[in-house]
């Protein structure tokens, strides 16, 4: 309602301006000139329409893909923080992080008990190999985790239950099974929970089946895994006392940075590192990864938009061409206007307004076409599109700029005409 009133007020104001001021009159002259050459004006607008539509569609696809990637990543949990051993130097040689044994039980306990910005903590040990049930076998990864892992990675259990704290304490031979593994081992379906499978000759009982997560945005199958209590993997499978990593989740995504600082302090204290010593661990956050992904998507979008923008440049040249023709055609009119007192400036403004009008009208139509194409792309090809609001404002600005830039030379030419020659031009 308010919008309607504002629109009416603006329309009335524009109408009064158009009827009364020189600028308004010039504007009307420009509209008339365009209307008098509808076909020609439309053709030169077409370039702008295509250009703007292309830019809008590219931005929309870029933005849409970015949002869908973000969504994928945030499904994995945006507040995840991963602590890995690392960056250890021995005699000037940097060691392979996976072979390092700096993350110990004490570290896990310290983080779990002391960290205030951390909601969940789970140590991780992993292994991989063949898992066998009856005549079926498949290669998979085994993750040894604590109960809190389920919350960190947002796993849900489709059938059965999770292993218990009791199972963790006793290093029980139990596991949760991912959908991919389940399909491989139990191709005929049926009851899976309660079955005993073998991993590296150790029998483990399936207590629950994980709900499928599908592939992640890097193309990895997230359902090809077994999850066991970390104690089981450490003591019974690998016989090791260190973790390959510790997964945590910050209280919120925004608190990730504080959480990382806190973790760093705790671990440095635990490891008794001197103030000038490097960390012997590395900390990554999912938020950080998301940033990387976003910026990659941004670069791709930028490339697409730049390509589309070139068509706008070509469209601008088209407008300049048509304006030059228009100046030549209307030489006599320009001469007349000058003889009755128009200054060069008045004439150049007239032609500038005309070229801006062509490009901005083309821009508006281009935005509409862009919207339409995005709808089609989404409904026919299932491409994720999202038109950023600023891209519309940007399109307007760019179109005005094109109008000014490419209208300038024709306008200058018109303004510099000699009135004596112009008025007698045939």
């Amino acid at each position: 309602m308010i919008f309607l009133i504002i629109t009416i007020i603006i329309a009335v104001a524009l109408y009064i301006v158009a009827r009364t001021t020189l600028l308004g009159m010039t504007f009307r002259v420009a509209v008339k000139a365009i209307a008098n050459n509808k076909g020609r004006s439309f053709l030169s607008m077409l370039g702008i329409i295509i250009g703007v539509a292309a830019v809008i569609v590219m931005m929309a696809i870029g933005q849409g893909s970015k949002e869908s990637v973000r969504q994928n990543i945030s499904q994995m949990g945006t507040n995840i923080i991963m602590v890995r051993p690392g960056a250890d130097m021995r005699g000037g040689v940097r060691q392979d992080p996976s072979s390092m044994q700096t993350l110990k039980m004490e570290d896990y306990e310290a983080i779990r008990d002391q960290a205030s910005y951390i909601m969940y903590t789970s140590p991780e040990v992993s292994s991989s190999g063949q898992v066998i049930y009856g005549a079926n076998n498949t290669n998979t990864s085994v993750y040894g985790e604590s109960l809190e892992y389920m919350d960190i990675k947002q796993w849900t259990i489709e059938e059965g239950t999770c292993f218990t704290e009791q199972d963790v304490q006793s290093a029980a031979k139990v596991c949760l099974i991912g959908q991919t593994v389940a399909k491989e081992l139990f191709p005929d379906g049926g009851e899976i929970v309660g079955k005993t499978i073998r991993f590296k000759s150790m029998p483990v009982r399936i207590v629950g089946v994980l709900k499928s997560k599908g592939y992640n945005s890097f193309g990895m199958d997230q359902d090809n895994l077994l999850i066991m209590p970390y104690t089981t993997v450490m003591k019974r499978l690998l016989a090791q006392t260190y973790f390959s990593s510790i997964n945590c989740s910050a209280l919120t995504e925004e608190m990730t940075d504080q959480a990382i600082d806190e973790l760093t302090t705790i671990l440095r204290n635990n490891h008794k590192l001197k103030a000038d010593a490097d960390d012997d661990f590395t900390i990554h956050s999912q938020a950080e990864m998301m940033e990387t992904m976003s910026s990659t998507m941004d670069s791709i979008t930028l490339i697409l938009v730049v390509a589309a923008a070139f068509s706008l440049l070509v469209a601008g040249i088209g407008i300049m061409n048509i304006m030059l023709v228009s100046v030549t055609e209307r030489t006599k009119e320009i001469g007349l206007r000058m003889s009755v007192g128009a200054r060069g400036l008045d004439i150049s403004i007239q032609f500038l307004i005309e070229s801006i009008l062509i490009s901005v009208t083309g821009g508006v139509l281009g935005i509409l076409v862009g919207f339409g194409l995005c709808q089609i792309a989404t409904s026919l090809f299932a491409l994720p599109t999202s038109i950023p609001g600023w891209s519309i404002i940007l399109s307007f600005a760019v179109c005005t700029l094109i109008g000014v830039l490419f209208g300038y030379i024709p306008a200058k030419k018109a303004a510099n005409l000699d009135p004596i020659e112009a008025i007698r031009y045939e």
Partner: protein
Amino acid sequence: MDTKDKKVVIELQDVRREFQVGDEVVKALRGVSFKIYEGEFVTIQGTSGSGKSTLLNQLGCLDTPTSGEYLLDGVPVRTMTKNQRAKLRNRKIGFIFQNYNLLAKTTAVENVELPLMYNNKVKAQERRERAVKALIEVGLGDRLEHKSNQMSGGQMQRVAIARALVNDPTILLADEATGNLDTRTSFEMLVLFQKLHREGHTIIFVTHNPEIAQYSSRNIFLRDGQIKSDTYNDNILDAATALAALPKPVD
């Protein structure tokens, strides 16, 4: 003719205009001097190449002299900038062209309003009022909203004359203003010019048609860029009488 109490509106002092054409210098005006007083109806005649058009451009402030001085209403034009001359044209000169030069697909009123558009002191309402008044004066009070392509040659030239009058100029400058019209319509225009003359307008009518000279008060004859003769007309013919004497148009 007694010119003692009359105000000088145009004064040319040894005006020369040369053009560089290739290696050659073409002397279009070779020292032209004259004064035109308020209320005169002057015809400037000459054959093609006599310097008529060049002189008209000078008088119309479209061009500036190579040497000499041109004073319009006491204002020296030679040293003026382009924009100053544009303003001068806007306020002091009314142009009438041979081929009317109306804006296409534009109404009579809008065409007449045009000079006032470039005068920011005149507001929209006054602009329209003055345009309507000028159109009534030239006898087109019933054709205000007609577009230029819906009018006859005579009507278009009347619109052009109204446009020249609308800014209340010091001089009316007509360039072959009857050149494109048939005899009857030409006389109708002359009747209009004589009416404007009687009302006190200063008119300069450039033509190559010697007949028109009989209806004006003063005749300047150019040849080879110089004034050949400058005479006052003691026996001004009445265009209205001549028009009445014309054979009736055959339908």
